[in-house]
């Protein structure tokens, strides 16, 4: 289908574009006609007053399939992704069973193709069964299509194993995705070790659980030459170390979950289990540092860290609830809120949702370059709405932002030249 999207503010950070213009699609690809008059569209979208940007690339979304279909499925969550402007999402290997080469080749492609709502990429395991003891078959995982390797937040206590795993990953030129959290310092912690945890009587997770792990991982990366990506940073101090390492020329990148840029430990008061997160919500100073890190580019990407849960997973006292937010549908509203508040420039915010995460995954996506697959997201910056549990597309309705009013919303999502949202 030939599609013309006219009159929107085209924001394409990869090509340094930030101006009102038209975007053309033909044969599933972005095209650049010699002149506007020479393109006969079968469908015209009026995007005046809207932002037209590349389809979003989400570095971490858990689809819960296979293994936890009582929480969500590939079909339900890719649909939520389409409604959220996300055209590529990347799954950590923490499925049940743990992602193996066969699953990547045989299970995921037919199921995602059947859903037809988003491109689904996967990370492979860094250690066998994520157990932290033996190396995973990284070569086979790469051949099967995994874009990187990760232990999905499970600890690798033996640093000798971590060192070898990083070394081995370089053999196959795989980026190592790390969740920096020292298991000993983390202990049985439930919340940031600070005033709120003390008040609520929740075991604390000190800042050093993250900073010690980042320092250690940076040294291991330096020694092994591995390309590392830090997932879901939560502290300002860790960010400082990443910034310093990058200035020294180390191939290091980092992301943050959208909600970490808005919430703090204070949001736990009253035992709000919707704010039970891993890593935990930290202090206000940490949140300010994360925002500054996004603005200056130290944080490459903002992701949804989507973790849908069934209702029962939340119906328990705080410590007994499962951590995580159903985050897809608030990814754009929360990130755009930072733009509205003048904290981050629009092109930088869009880059953190598109070109930068695509680069981290080594994907030639996240841009509106002519010739690339037509994955497009259209955002209405004045699309005032309230997050309503009943109207969420994800199977998981677990969000601390329910009933929160947002200014921006996604109005259209184009995947491979086809309008996948609004749903036909």
């Amino acid at each position, binding site marked *: 289908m030939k599609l013309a999207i006219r009159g929107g503010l085209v924001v394409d950070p990869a090509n340094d574009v930030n101006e009102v213009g038209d975007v053309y699609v033909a044969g599933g690809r972005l095209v650049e006609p010699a002149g506007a008059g020479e393109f006969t569209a079968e469908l015209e979208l009026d995007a005046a007053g809207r932002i037209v940007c590349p389809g979003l690339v989400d570095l971490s979304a858990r689809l819960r399939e296979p293994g936890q279909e009582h929480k969500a499925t590939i079909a339900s969550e890719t649909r939520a992704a389409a409604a959220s402007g996300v055209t590529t999402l990347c799954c950590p290997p923490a499925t049940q069973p743990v992602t193996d080469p066969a699953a990547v080749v045989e299970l995921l492609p037919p199921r995602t193709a059947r859903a037809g709502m988003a491109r689904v990429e996967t990370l492979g395991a860094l250690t066998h069964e994520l157990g932290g003891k033996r190396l995973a078959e990284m070569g086979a995982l790469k051949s099967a299509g995994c874009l990187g390797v990760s232990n999905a937040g499970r600890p690798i206590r033996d640093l000798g194993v971590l060192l070898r795993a990083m070394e081995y990953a370089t053999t196959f030129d795989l980026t190592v995705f790390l969740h920096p959290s020292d298991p000993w310092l983390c202990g049985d912690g439930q919340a940031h*070790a*600070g*005033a709120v*945890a*003390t*008040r*609520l*009587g*929740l*075991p*604390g997770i000190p800042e050093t659980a993250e900073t010690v792990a980042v320092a250690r991982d940076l040294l291991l990366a330096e020694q092994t030459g591995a390309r590392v990506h830090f997932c879901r940073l939560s502290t300002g101090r860790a960010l400082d170390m990443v910034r310093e390492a990058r200035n020294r020329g180390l191939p290091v990148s980092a992301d943050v979950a959208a909600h970490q840029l808005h919430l703090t430990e204070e949001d736990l*008061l*009253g*035992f709000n*289990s919707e704010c039970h997160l891993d890593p935990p919500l930290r202090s206000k100073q940490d949140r300010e540092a994360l925002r500054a890190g996004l603005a200056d580019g130290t944080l490459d990407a903002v992701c949804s860290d989507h973790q849908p849960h069934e209702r*029962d997973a939340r*119906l*328990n*006292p*705080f*410590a*007994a609830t499962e951590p995580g937010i159903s985050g897809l549908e608030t990814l754009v509203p929360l990130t755009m809120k930072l733009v509205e508040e003048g904290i981050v420039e629009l092109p930088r915010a869009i880059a953190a949702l598109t070109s930068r995460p695509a680069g981290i995954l080594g994907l030639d996506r996240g841009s509106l370059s002519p010739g690339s697959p037509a994955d497009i997201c259209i955002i209405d910056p004045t699309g005032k709405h309230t997050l309503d549990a009943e109207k969420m597309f994800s199977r998981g309705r677990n969000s601390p932002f329910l009933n929160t009013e947002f200014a921006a919303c996604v109005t259209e999502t184009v995947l491979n030249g086809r309008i996948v949202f609004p749903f036909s």
Partner: protein
Amino acid sequence: MSIDNLQLDDQSRLRHFLTIEGLPRSLLLQILDTAESFAGVGERAVKKVPLLRGKTIVNLFFEPSTRTRTTFELAAKRLSADVLTVDVSTSATTKGESLLDTLRNLEAMYCDMFVVRHALSGAAHFIARNVAPHISVVNGGDGQHAHPTQAMLDMFTIRRHKGGFENLKVAIVGDLAHSRVARSQIHALRTLGVAEIRAVGPQTLLPPCLESLGAIPHNQLSDGLRDVDVIIMLRLQRERAQGALLPSTHEYFQFYGLTEEKLVTAKPDAIVMHPGPINRGVETDSEVADGARSVILQQVGFGIAVRMAVMSLLLGSQAAAEREGNQ
């Protein structure tokens, strides 16, 4: 929903008793005054008042407890309520039944109040938020968060001995990091307006940011006890001395155990309290525990009066709310 809104109804009456935090001074004084009126009941030949006749109170204990459970039971019985004690730690939940399912089943038995003890912080809040609207919840201790009736009986004891709270210096000694009792005491002492609250213990047993609760941390017992009017010893769980928090109970006693010699820096009329059960030779030696300044056994007796006060106030608010509803 804020903690205050959960505990108080729109007329600022007590709906649930979950934490001292956020409750007004007047309400704490009302609990103490009401407890004062019940304090004599236990000494009478007929140890009952008919205030809660026809009411059903369920003690829901997800964690073992002897002292708290029996004083709650006695308090309810002295108010003429019907009492059912469910030891959930050995029943339903071990069979995989969820906390909420247990709750729904008990609700169906038409009870008026749950007294809840649970090993997880926030459990009482969770139950209060999810319980049927006609049921009041009393927190009988949740994880490391709060134990408000224990704190109120401690306040009762302090007022009995010191006459009031202004100008008092109070030292809380021991494992504050893991203590729900200490957290509730700090909130209560602060609300009732004492001059100074000190938190005394080794650094590993003091939680971060104690100052934000209104307590001043001290690592040396002699400094912490200087000129205090009240000393509250906390129980040290023996397993704390088996990991990385303390080298041994022996060393703990050497530096933080209360003895007559260490009491010299405190005021001569300082009282010594302990929520029990005492580890003799760990938190305190027997000379102090059984000595003239110890009020530890009185605390237990006062616990019944204070719990009677809390229960009667809660069911009183229920009745008042019902009357308003009928008008």
